């Protein structure tokens, strides 16, 4: 016979002022299974919790019900109190007679009746509880960071500094991401490369960090603490163990006219190349598609000139398998492909309509023009420069509905640089709004305006070429009049979009993306770094557009989350998760597709049936992944699945208790 103890809290006068707690306790004593029942001024106080302990001893209770405040606050407290009293903490039920009764009702009689009902339901539920134990899963103390931009480097460094090994996988031949391409950073106008390349070097040199560049994650199995990752190291054709990075091969390579993506198409590179002089690793690879040796079996110059014999034309892709305990996603962003969407800006047919990133290369001292702003068409210095903001952002017809957050500031920076670098320049910015939320951002923008940059509120409706001028037509919506500018150069502040292939890698790792393809955080406010897949965290622009300080902060945040996972040898899992009754499960698999955490798979079991042993497949719950939402349970027709702590039987008992 089960022996339930019921404890009714007054919460000072918070409950007792409206609910007759003594009467609730007296009524509760008559409920089936209740062996002891009492009311008390403050159940959460030490004397209140001691009361539970004493009552358990004196009345040999084996289950506890506390009627007090919201379980969202004190459930852990009373679970512990139950445990301290020598009872399994899950043989406990709590009901809320404060927020849901005394604070919202004034009629003492009706409030008391409601409280009695709620206690009866909790008693009915607790009678159907069974002892539950937390289980534990081992943790592999190593992290994987996917993406070697500023977010990924920051995350890798912080995890590594925490003492855990990190594997950093970067698709490009160098880490660094987009930041080294930038000239200056707003609002401080620091040299971007000057603060970024030391970070790249630190990442490279950190003893706990292993970098795989020119590599992609091909497969991820397992779950938090226990991921198995397969990395494809693409063929580099240069043995980096031998190569000294002397650079001789690059100077001798005859194929010199390959557009360099690092220069955003504004400059060229050779077929054997490093993306830029400070690339990490600072060793070249061969771009197989453009190498004459690899495509036509001619040339072979690099092998001939290489002083160490590092060139390996027969290099192959290599698959590397590692175990990790946590994963940080830092796959960054790309620019919105404006040429496909904006006919009014010429679909890319005017060479002097460029993007902000291209402008970065133009003003960069290490860029193709050595930092002189020269327009691509004729190499002349532009005098009149038009900047257009929100190209692809805040435009749900042609582009994206969202704001890309960084464009207002980098456009202000660009405008400032143009005014600064070009004498007698005339700089016009077409904008929808100016958004400068950030430390020192508004001041920077005001400075730009004071510099003489002309801000026009309105969209540009048309750009066309006339002679060597670009005719920019728009509207000044503040003055309500048409505006025309005869410009030498037009710079588009294009939207940020998730980097190419980010959806595929999300699928491989096993979490979801939002409607724009950015990675879906577990909660937009309170869990911005987590995904729904336990052990997978987000950093940087892969989660949504953001600037460098936010990205760095998120990198550190994700690192803290990942480090927390790796800080233990094993981790406890909440026992309030789904369970399968193998005998009942028919293995239809409807639950597999419903689980948002990929926590259910069909596994084979053997079973005795009709005198023989048969093998069949049934659902199986991964306790490391299941979060206990119960969606699978409600979808299970036969009732083979159930949710511990919220079982069908418990809920039915609560329903019955309400009415009987």
């Amino acid at each position, binding site marked *: 016979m089960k022996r339930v103890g019921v404890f009714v809290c007054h919460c000072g006068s918070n409950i007792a002022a409206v609910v007759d707690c003594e009467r609730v306790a007296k009524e509760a004593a*008559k409920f*089936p299974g209740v062996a002891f029942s009492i009311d008390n001024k403050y159940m959460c106080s030490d004397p209140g919790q001691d009361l539970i302990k004493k009552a358990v001893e004196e009345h040999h209770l084996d289950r506890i019900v506390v009627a007090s405040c919201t379980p969202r606050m004190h459930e852990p407290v009373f679970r512990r109190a139950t445990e301290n009293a020598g009872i399994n903490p899950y043989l406990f039920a709590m009901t809320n007679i404060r927020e849901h009764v005394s604070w919202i009702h004034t009629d003492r009689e009706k409030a008391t009746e409601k409280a009695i009902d709620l206690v009866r339901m909790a008693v009915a539920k607790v009678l159907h509880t069974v002892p539950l134990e937390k289980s534990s899963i081992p943790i592999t103390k190593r992290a994987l960071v996917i993406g070697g931009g500023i977010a990924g480097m920051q995350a890798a460094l912080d995890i590594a500094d925490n003492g855990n090994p990190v594997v950093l996988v970067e698709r490009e031949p160098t880490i660094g991401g987009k930041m080294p391409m930038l000239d200056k950073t707003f609002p401080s106008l620091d040299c971007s490369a000057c603060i970024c390349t030391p970070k790249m070097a630190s990442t490279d040199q950190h003893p706990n960090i292993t970098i795989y560049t020119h590599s992609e994650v091909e497969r991820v199995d397992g779950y938090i603490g226990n991921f198995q990752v397969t990395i494809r190291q693409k063929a580099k054709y240069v043995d980096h163990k031998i190569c000294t990075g002397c650079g001789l091969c690059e100077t001798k390579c005859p194929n010199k006219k390959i557009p360099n993506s690092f220069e955003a198409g504004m400059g060229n590179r050779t077929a054997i190349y490093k993306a830029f002089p400070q690339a990490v690793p600072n060793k070249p690879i061969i771009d197989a598609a453009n190498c004459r040796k690899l495509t036509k079996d001619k040339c072979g110059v690099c092998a001939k000139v290489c002083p160490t014999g590092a060139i390996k034309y027969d290099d192959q892709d290599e698959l590397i398998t590692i175990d990790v305990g946590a994963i940080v996603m830092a796959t960054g962003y790309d620019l919105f492909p404006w040429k496909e969407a904006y006919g009014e800006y010429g679909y890319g047919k005017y060479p002097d309509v460029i993007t902000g990133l291209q402008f970065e290369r133009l003003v960069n001292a290490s860029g193709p023009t050595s930092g002189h702003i020269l327009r691509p068409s004729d190499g002349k210095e532009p005098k009149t420069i038009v900047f257009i903001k929100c190209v692809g952002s805040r435009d749900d017809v042609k582009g994206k509905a969202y704001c890309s957050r960084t464009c207002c500031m980098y456009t202000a920076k660009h405008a400032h640089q143009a005014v600064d670098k070009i004498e007698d320049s005339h700089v016009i910015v077409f904008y929808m709004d100016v958004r400068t939320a950030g430390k020192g951002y508004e001041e920077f923008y005001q400075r730009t305006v004071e510099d003489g940059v002309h801000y026009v509120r309105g969209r540009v409706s048309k750009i066309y070429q006339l002679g060597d001028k670009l005719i920019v037509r728009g509207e000044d919506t503040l003055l309500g009049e048409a505006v025309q500018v005869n410009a030498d150069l037009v710079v588009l502040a294009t939207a940020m979009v998730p980097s190419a292939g980010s959806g595929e890698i999300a699928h491989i790792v096993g979490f979801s993306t939002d409607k724009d393809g950015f990675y879906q955080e577990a909660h937009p406010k309170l869990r911005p770094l987590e995904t729904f897949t336990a052990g997978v965290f987000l950093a940087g622009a892969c989660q949504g557009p953001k600037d460098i300080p936010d990205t760095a902060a998120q990198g550190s945040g994700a690192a803290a989350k990942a480090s927390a996972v790796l800080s233990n040898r094993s981790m406890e899992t909440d026992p309030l998760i789904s369970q399968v009754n193998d005998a009942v499960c028919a293995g239809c698999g409807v639950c597999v597709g419903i689980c948002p955490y990929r926590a259910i798979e069909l596994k084979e079991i053997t079973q005795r049936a*009709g005198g023989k042993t048969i093998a069949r497949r049934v659902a199986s719950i991964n306790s490391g992944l299941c979060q206990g939402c119960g969606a699978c349970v409600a979808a299970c027709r036969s009732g083979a699945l159930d949710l511990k702590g919220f079982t069908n039987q418990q809920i039915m008992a609560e329903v019955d208790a309400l009415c009987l």
Partner: protein
Amino acid sequence: MQGIAKQDLNKVLETLSGGGAALLVPMEIDGVTRFARWEQGAKTALGAGNTLLPPKEALFPQNEKVFNYEMSNEEAKIVPSAAAAEETIILGIRPCDVRAIQALDNVFLTKDYVDELYKTRRRHTLLIALGCTQPAPTCFCSSVGGDPLQAEGADIMLWDLGETYGLEALSDKGKDLLKKIDKFMSKSRGKKPAAGKFSLEVDSRGIAEKLHNMFEDPIWDRWYQKCLGCGICTFICPTCHCFDMQEKHTGQWDGYRYRCWDSCMFQEYSLMAGGHNPRPTKKERLRNRFLHKLCFFQERYGMLLCTGCGRCVRECPVGMDITKFIKEVSEVSLNE
């Protein structure tokens, strides 16, 4: 033979139900023919042959309260349920169904076991049987020891003579009842009619003895496969009488225990508390049903538990035909 004119039937029914007795006659209700309480103006289905639902529910309802209980944390109290004691007349019951009630009497009233609930109902029930002149295509009472025209065990026997119903009291209770409707009685010229031809016929002699040795016979492997495992045959059978006992809570502490029809064709029927099922597949369950009908009951009570009403033959959705089974059994040669 005495008789009543068919045109007086309503008045006769009115008189019979007038004394406060429940008069159950075949009626069609929401598309189902069954024995239901006749009230003034109700249309009978006397001529429609066998009802879909047998009259057993009048004596053995699908749900029946056994006792009430009241409990507290200290004690439990049982309050016996008062058995219904309403006078009941079942009119229009066919001879096969009367024989079925005799089988139920055997189960519930003999062999040192008396079921009080059944006994009370039975004692207050009077049977007015209607002989069958034209057997339905699924009828086979004559093949299992029945007589379509004579219902031994009924209180009154009726025959459809065209314009009139011929009448004959078979018991003292029947004679007393006939006095009540004396004024509608006339001397009928007709005599007990002759039975029509059966289209289903099978020789069931010796079936019990033969099946006694056929528990492990391969015949069951052939027969169980098409069975759906549903309970149609048991629920519409006039003789099937298995029940389950369950409790229903009507309050925190109060409730009642009831019994309700169960079916040996259900997987859950023979499932034991620990999870073992001695009749794990449809084969064992079908075997049990047929053996109970055609062997075990005969051995215990001296009659088959099949009265040839043909309901299962008619209603089984997979065409399970007990006459065909009997025939196949008779063709089996048992070599020791």
